[in-house]
């Protein structure tokens, strides 16, 4: 699905990604991990740009429309699938079948009761799930998500990520939560200072590799790899 060879990206003169080589195959679920400013978001943005029409996009900054209901925000993921007048009619008075479609996805993310409330009246966790639902409603093969569940509790985190991986063939996530990466994904890519430190199947990831990625944090690595 994606093949990057010797990728170098800069913001002005500052190098953000250097000499990136990686391939993501169809059917894989990949977690990208690394400290803040290691280049994770830049990598995700680049992947999105490579196949914008095949990607269900779930950015870190939700950028939802505050005064619109959760239903309309989720439906907005499918705007390009319909004619403009159809969308306009659905904005003013939702079609029952469109509502049902959105509600099915919302139910999987515990959002049914919030569907008719405007986003500015919802909690941070609910907004994040709406962001996921907006991406999930898109009929695309690849799911790209940058920190999609950072505001959820541990139980919901795993449940939501498993719902996504079962709905999409290929998934690439950015996680801060190493436990989640190890539990829900098949492969982990470790980034540090814009370079790939390791790119391994979860079963092959070592404590040393993880300690290199999070060298400045006191993450309890012992517990993670038990």
């Amino acid at each position: 699905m994606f093949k990057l060879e010797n990728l170098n990206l800069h913001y002005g003169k500052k190098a953000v990604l250097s000499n990136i080589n990686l391939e993501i195959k169809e059917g894989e679920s990949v977690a990208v991990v690394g400290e803040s400013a290691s280049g994770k978001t830049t990598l995700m943005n680049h992947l999105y740009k490579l196949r914008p029409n095949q990607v269900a996009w779930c950015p870190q900054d939700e950028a939802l429309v505050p005064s619109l209901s959760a239903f309309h925000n989720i439906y907005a993921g499918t705007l390009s699938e319909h004619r403009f007048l159809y969308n306009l009619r659905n904005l003013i008075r939702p079609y029952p079948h469109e509502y049902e479609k959105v509600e099915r996805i919302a139910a999987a993310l515990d959002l049914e009761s919030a569907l008719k409330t405007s986003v500015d009246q919802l909690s941070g966790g609910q907004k994040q799930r709406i962001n996921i639902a907006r991406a999930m409603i898109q009929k695309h093969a690849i799911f790209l998500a940058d920190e999609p569940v950072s505001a959820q509790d541990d139980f919901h985190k795993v449940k939501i990520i498993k719902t996504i991986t079962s709905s999409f063939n290929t998934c690439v996530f950015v996680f801060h939560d190493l436990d989640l990466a190890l539990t829900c994904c098949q492969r982990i890519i470790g980034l540090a200072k814009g370079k790939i430190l390791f790119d391994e199947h979860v079963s092959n990831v070592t404590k040393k590799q993880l300690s290199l990625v999070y060298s400045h944090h006191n993450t309890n690595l012992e517990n993670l790899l038990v």
Partner: protein
Amino acid sequence: MSKALRTNQAMPFITSAKPMWQSSLFFIILTALCLPFLEFDIALTSPMNELKQMFLGLVQPNFMIDGIMSAFVHTIVFAIQAVVISVVIGFFFAQLYAFQGIRYLMGFLRSIHELFWALILIQLFGLTTLTGVLALVIPFSATFARVFSEIQQETTKLNYHQIKGSHFSRFIYSTLPLAWPRLSSYCRYRLECALRASVVLGFIGLPTIGFQLEGYLKLGHYHEVAALIFLFIGLVLSMRFWVNRFTLPVLFLFSVIWLPPTASTDNTSELSHTEFEESKWQVENLNRFIGDITPAPLKKTANVEDTNSDNIAKPLHELWQWFYSLFETQILPGIGYTLLLGQFAFALSAISGLLLFPILSKHMIKRKYYRNVGHFALTSLRCLPELLLAFIALIILGPSLLPGILAIGIHNGALIAHLVGLHSNELNLRKDTSSAPNTYFFELLPRIYGQFLSFTLYRGETILRETAILGILGIPTLGFFIDSAFEEFRLDRAFLLILVSAFLNIIAEALATRCRKHIHTHKPSRAVSSLTLIRN
């Protein structure tokens, strides 16, 4: 469909957009109710011919105009003197704005349009610099007082309460530095308004470029009109190059030396094209003025020395008759047309603001070059005074409400579009947004609508003031009857009509404030700062 799903679908949406839709619906219904009263008589038989002449004028402007330099200097001098003096007075009264009496006084002073102030002041000081400057200073000071006080209130008081010391020390160490960027940007915008207002003063005889514009428009000399319009647009667009904190004091000093704001007109004798009167301020002028604005029946009584009981009831009856006849023939139709014109102009401003803002929005038009063209077009429309636009529309369409609606609607629509467009550029949209029409309705409109309503309601207050002055051009609003009363030298009538117009504006301001509170928009800080640009 399961029962649970059906139940959920039947439930109403609970969105924060509800008060916005309610307000919008209210105004749509109000406009629809006014529709049957709208007259669209396009009286002129050959608007195409006039349009052709105007177009020829636009493509071949004639800049060789007698006295053009002097007219521009007068326009700038009036504006600069007025703004600098108003800022000082306004700032002083802003500190006293907590007193209800001051608030009412300021509300009253700004509710009378500068053109009406000029018509009153001409009676006292003649066509002098003092009249021109004071006509702007009075309403501008009152507006500055309100806006400065609002900016100070909106500026966070957190630091103020954390600092210990006298009120004045805390003010200059917390409130003032925080409010300063917004205060200075508002002053810059206000100078643009003052330049426009200064042009408008020319329409009643003061020697600004409005005087020349009116003359050339009446004669159909569109080559000269176009030249004046282009130069004025250039003047406003170039303001950021010649107005800053260093040049403004110098400009003010020179303007005061060259044309001191006094009632003496000696220094204006060089203006051969104007009909400046040689008049000097005398106390008798004030006495005469007070006599002139006293209702006619009361004046008669004052002249009669014998005051027995019959002579008390009779003048009261005559006063009532005087008022009733004025109410029936001028006040009522004047208010009716003012409100009608105001409502349609308000609706047109809102619609054109919503339709035009995308040409400035980076989310709708990707190429900066095209956005710059849009910016230039909107600024040009915005910097032309409504009175001038109405005059041009009147020539093309003939006398009806339509020219007034178009002029005010387009001018204010351009201003609203400009601010909403800038506000929309501060928004960060997602990468996966859909095509332009979908982006407009699903991303931009829901995000900017609250701000748009606030901007439009602020303009609504101004629109009603501007509507009244279109009467000068023959559109039968309150301004028409006021102008007629001045022409017939019936100052008692003019004064009462001005009071009625002021009262109408005060009510409109109160309604708009209420409506804004109802909408209760969540304002991002940058949007609040642009809000200050639209007040009055």
